[in-house]
């Protein structure tokens, strides 16, 4: 495999948008193309992420329309990826694999989502469609419900009083809102405290409103190129050192929800390919769709032992200036979670961190960063390790 690098990156502000999925993707895509010092005609393929365009806008098969918005060459295959919340990361990984294999030299990858258009009841229903339809979403399972069950199982398995676990979970939300307060593209840019989290409306016991990421609109895109080509195009290419992807299947096969096996397998692949280990990672963008999800992630990615990661945010170890900075962008919690775009926004944040372009939320001296995106109810996990 050839070495592969990220050139330009682009993302819209995340939040509530009046723009269409295609308009948002065009904004992010043009920013990524211009940042790579190339033109749309130089793009050889589009790896396009979108989850729910059919429910949001009555639009299936959005990829060719996205290519048309950007004026990509008609010879460039434009293909839609869908892996629930991990959609864009999976698109980027496959883009990197095909560039690495020598099929293409320069491609565009990313995603877009306009989730707020659906409203909360329909959005809750359509997100739940990423759970197994016959046996799990059929029982009224929701996305928050899945992670709520994981939180109860975590408390039970490790013998932590639920009240104590909830305070540590709240600290994850407080930390990510603090990071988000420094991100002008974040959905929420205000700090909160533990009381805000613990006084929120109950969504799915024990998860309250501020344990949950919002429904958001937004798009993000990155240009991926053969490393030699990337060095010609931009001053600071950010190299893709390793990737991994694995699946979990239905919850009833996963059994122990405190152990995200798909993530354990995916991150192991990525570490092996990069020749790195968890201690080498300076900055992480990981999948904090719910506060408990960040706790599960820091454990299954190897930053903490199982059952020991629950108080990482409380101790400040994952906060800016901490041992391993987690979600400096604000994460899904504060930056927002337009599901089809999330992975590309995570890659964008890590690329900017490794280029030392992150302003007040810059992780000093960051050389190696890692992206972690989880799709559905632990159904897909995709990891990407990047280095400067």
């Amino acid at each position: 495999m050839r070495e592969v690098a990220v050139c330009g990156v682009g993302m819209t502000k995340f939040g509530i948008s009046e723009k269409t999925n295609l308009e948002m993707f065009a904004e992010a895509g043009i920013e990524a193309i211009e940042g790579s010092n190339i033109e749309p005609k130089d793009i050889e393929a589009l790896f396009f992420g979108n989850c729910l365009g059919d429910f949001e806008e009555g639009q299936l098969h959005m990829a060719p329309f996205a290519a048309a918005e950007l004026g990509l060459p008609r010879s460039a295959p434009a293909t839609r990826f869908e892996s629930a919340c991990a959609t864009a990361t999976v698109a980027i990984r496959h883009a990197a694999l095909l560039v690495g294999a020598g099929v293409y030299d320069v491609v565009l990858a990313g995603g877009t989502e306009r989730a707020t258009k659906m409203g909360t009841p329909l959005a809750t229903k359509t997100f739940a469609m990423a759970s197994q339809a016959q046996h799990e979403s059929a029982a009224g399972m929701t996305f928050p419900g899945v992670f709520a069950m994981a939180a109860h199982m975590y408390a039970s398995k490790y013998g932590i009083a639920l009240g104590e676990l909830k305070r540590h979970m709240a600290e994850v939300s407080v930390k990510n809102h603090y990071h988000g307060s420094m991100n002008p593209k974040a959905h929420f840019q205000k700090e909160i405290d533990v009381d805000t989290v613990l006084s929120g409306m109950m969504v799915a016991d024990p998860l309250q409103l501020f344990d949950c990421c919002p429904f958001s609109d937004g798009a993000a895109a990155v240009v991926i190129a053969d490393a030699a080509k990337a060095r010609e195009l931009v001053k600071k290419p950010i190299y893709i050192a390793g990737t991994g992807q694995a699946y979990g299947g239905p919850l009833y096969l996963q059994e122990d929800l405190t152990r995200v096996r798909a993530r354990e397998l995916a991150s192991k692949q990525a570490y092996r390919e990069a020749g790195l280990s968890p201690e080498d990672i300076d900055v992480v963008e990981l999948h904090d769709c719910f506060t408990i999800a960040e706790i599960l992630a820091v454990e299954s990615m190897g930053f903490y032992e199982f059952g020991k990661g629950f108080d990482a945010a409380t101790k400040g170890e994952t906060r800016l200036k901490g041992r391993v900075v987690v979600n400096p962008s604000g994460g899904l919690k504060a930056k927002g979670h337009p599901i089809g775009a999330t992975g590309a926004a995570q890659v964008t944040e890590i690329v900017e961190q490794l280029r030392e372009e992150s302003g007040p939320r810059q992780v000093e001296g960051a050389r190696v960063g890692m992206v972690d995106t989880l799709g559905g109810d632990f159904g897909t996990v995709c990891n990407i390790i990047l280095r400067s």
Partner: protein
Amino acid sequence: MEYRVTYQQYQQGLEQGEFVGLKCNECGAVTFPPLGVCRKCSGTNLEQTQMSGMGIVKTFTVIRVPPEGMKAPYVVAMVKLDEGPYVTGNLVGIDPDKTDMDIIDKRVKLGSQVIDGNAGPENKQRVLTFELV
């Protein structure tokens, strides 16, 4: 290969109070709800078997914000069956507002109920229920 126990057959079983699964003739593992292969060894030498319908609660949540078409609150739980497999369904016969961590590890009996308006492919499909014994 013909699919051993289809979703339709599984649903018909539920209607009659039967919990139809698969037993692997290679490794002995029981798969429930049915899959195309054995959940442990991916083997295809499978025979039909019935669950006893007993298990223990491993985790739960009370859904307060429901998907469109459903009415909250209700309880979703994961149960480990005596035969080994985990299953997902609704905890019934209990006040959702009084359901807390004490429910974990409690023994339950399997049943089923028809759910309308969920996100699933069928308008009225049966899902598993759990009742304390």
